[in-house]
C-alpha cells in the first residue's frame, strides 16, 4: 500500500508545482506584453487617420469639426498642457515645503498624522474631487476673476488646475518624503558640524543631493495629472477653443475622449480621432514616466 501511495504523493507534488509555475509564467508574460498590446492596438486603430491627414495638420491645426472631417488637436493639447503645467506649479512648492517640514523639522508624530491624511487623499475617487471642485473651487475662481475685472463662470483652466493639484499632492508628497528620508544622516551631520545652520544644510546640502529625485517626483506628478479625466472634466468648462488665459474654459484631451465616446461610432473617422487622442495621452504619460523613473534610478545609484 505504502509503496503505491508514495510515488502518487510525489507525482501530485510535481504536478502541483509545474501547474502553479505554468500559471505564474503566463501572468509574467501577460504583464510583459500588455504595454505592447495597448500601444499596437491604439496605433492600428488610429493609423488610418494618418493616411488621410498629415501629422502636422492633426497636431497643429485648431479646426475641430468632426462632421466635416477636420480634426485639429491643438486646442485640446494646449488645454491639457496649460492645466498640467499650472497644477504642477501649485502642487510643487506645497509638496516640497511639506516634505522638508515633515522629515526635517518635526517629530515622528507629525509623520504619523500625515500618513493617514496622504493615504485618504490618495484614495478619494476622482469624481468626489470633481464634486468638491464644483462646490468650492468653481465659485472661488469666479470670485477671483471678478477681482481682476474678468468675466468668468468659474468653470475654467484655473479651477481644473487647482482640483488637479490637490489630486496629485498625495502622490508627489509620498515620493518626496521617501527621498528626503533616504538621504544618509551623516551628510547633514557633516554639514552641521562645519557650522552651517539647519536651514543652510537643508537648502544647500540636502536639496542639492535630492535634486534629481525632486525633479523626477514632479515628472511623475505631471504624468499623473496629464491623464486625469473625470474631476477635470467636471470643472474645466469643455469649450473647444485655444485658451488665452487661466480664467477661460478649456477642453483637455481626456475630457474629449470621455465626452464623445457615445457619438464616436456614428460619425466617420471620429472613433479613430478619439483613439489618436488616447494614443497621444499614452505616449506623453509614458515619456514622462520613463524619464522620471530613469532619473530616480540614476539618483539611487549615486547614493
Amino acid at each position, binding site marked *: 500500500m505504502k509503496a503505491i501511495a508514495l510515488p502518487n504523493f510525489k507525482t501530485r*507534488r510535481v504536478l502541483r*508545482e509545474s501547474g*502553479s*509555475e505554468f*500559471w*505564474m509564467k503566463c*501572468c*509574467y508574460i*501577460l*504583464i*510583459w506584453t*500588455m*504595454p505592447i498590446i*495597448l500601444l499596437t492596438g*491604439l496605433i492600428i*486603430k488610429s493609423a488610418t487617420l494618418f493616411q488621410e491627414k498629415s501629422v502636422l495638420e492633426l497636431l497643429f491645426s485648431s479646426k475641430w469639426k468632426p462632421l466635416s472631417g477636420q480634426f485639429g488637436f491643438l486646442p485640446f493639447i494646449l488645454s491639457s498642457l496649460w492645466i498640467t503645467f499650472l497644477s504642477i506649479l501649485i502642487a510643487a*512648492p*506645497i509638496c516640497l*515645503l*511639506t516634505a*522638508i*517640514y515633515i522629515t526635517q523639522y518635526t517629530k515622528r508624530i507629525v509623520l504619523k498624522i500625515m500618513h493617514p*491624511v*496622504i*493615504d485618504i*487623499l490618495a*484614495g*478619494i*475617487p*476622482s*469624481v*468626489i*474631487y470633481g*464634486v*468638491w471642485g*464644483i*462646490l*468650492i473651487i468653481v465659485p472661488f475662481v469666479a470670485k477671483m476673476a471678478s477681482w481682476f475685472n474678468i468675466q468668468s463662470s468659474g468653470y475654467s483652466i484655473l479651477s481644473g488646475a487647482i482640483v488637479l493639484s*490637490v489630486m496629485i*499632492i498625495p502622490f508627489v508628497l509620498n515620493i518626496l518624503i521617501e527621498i528626503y528620508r533616504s538621504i544618509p544622516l551623516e551628510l547633514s551631520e557633516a554639514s552641521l558640524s562645519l557650522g552651517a545652520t*539647519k*536651514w*543652510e544644510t537643508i537648502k544647500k546640502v540636502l536639496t542639492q543631493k535630492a535634486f534629481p529625485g525632486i525633479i523626477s517626483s514632479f515628472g511623475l506628478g505631471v*504624468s*499623473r495629472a496629464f*491623464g486625469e*479625466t*473625470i474631476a477635470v472634466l*467636471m470643472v474645466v468648462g469643455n469649450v473647444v477653443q485655444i485658451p488665452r488665459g487661466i480664467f477661460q474654459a478649456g477642453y483637455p484631451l*481626456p475630457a474629449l*475622449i*470621455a465626452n464623445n*465616446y457615445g457619438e464616436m*461610432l456614428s460619425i466617420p473617422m471620429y472613433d479613430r480621432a*478619439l*483613439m489618436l487622442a488616447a494614443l497621444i495621452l*499614452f505616449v506623453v504619460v*509614458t515619456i514622462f*514616466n520613463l524619464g522620471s*523613473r530613469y532619473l530616480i534610478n540614476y539618483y539611487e545609484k549615486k547614493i
Partner: protein
Amino acid sequence: MKRKFRVNRKLLKKSEELLFRVFMILSTTIIIMALLAIIASILIKGVPSLSWSMISETPKGGYYFGKEGGILNAIIGSLYLSTGATLLALVVSLPLALYINIHKMKQKRAVNSIRFILDLLWGIPSIVYGAFGFMLMVYLGLRTSLLAGILTVALFIIPIMVRSMDEVLKTVPKGLIESAFSLGSTKSETAFRIVLRQCIPGLITAVLLSFGRAIGDAAAVLFTAGYTDYIPTSLSQPTATLPLSVFFQLSSPIPEVQNRAYASAVILTIIVLIISITSRAFSMKYQKNKIK
C-alpha cells in the same frame, strides 16, 4: 561698521529660515485643510438629502426629474463590478507577485525590469484603458456589460495590486525562504504555504487598496459598463456604477436631482473611507505580527 554688517547677516539668515518655516507650516496646513474641506463640503451638501429610500430603492419612473427612487442599482452595480474585478485581478496578481519575489529571487535584472513595466502600466491613465477596452468590445462585437467593465477595471488594477503586494513581499527575510527551500519544499510550496502565510495581512491591505481604486474609478467604466436603472442579473447586462451616477445626476439641471448627486457622493465617500480605514487596521496588525 564691519561688526554691524555681520549682525545683519546673521539676522538675515535667521529670518530667512523663519520665513520658510512659516511657509512650511502653511503648506502642511493647506494639505490637511484641503482634505477636511473635501470631506466637510461633501457631507454638508449631501447628508441633508440622504435618506433610507436613497440606498434601498432603484430609480423609479421619473427619477431623473426629481421623483421617487434611490441609487441601489449603482451601489450594487459598483460592488459587483469592483468585487469581480478585484477577484479577477487577484488571480493574476498574487501568483505574479510571488513569482517575482520567490522564483525569480536571484534574477535581479528580470525583477527590476518587470517592476519597471508595472510602474509604467500603473501610470497609464484609466481613460486609456477605458478607450482600449471599448475598442476591443467593438472589435469583438460585444455590448456594454458588467463583464466588459470587470475586464477593463481588472486590467487597470492589476499593476496597482501587483506592485503593492510586491512591496509587502519584498520585506520577507531571505533566510525564511532559504530555510524553507533547505527543508525540501518546492518553490511554489514555499510561496503559497510559507511566504503567503507570513504576509497575509499586508496582502489583504494591497487587495483592499485595489478594491478602493476599482470602486472609485469612473473613466474606465464610462465606456465599458454602460448605465442602467436596473440591478444586473447576469454578466452580459450593463450595470450602473456609483461614480457615474454621481456624475450623471450632477449634470442634470434640476436642483433635486443635483442634491441626490451630493448624497450619492456621500455614500461613495463613506464606502471608500471604510475601505481605507480597514486596510490601515490590517497593515497595523501586520506590523505587530511580523517575523523579523
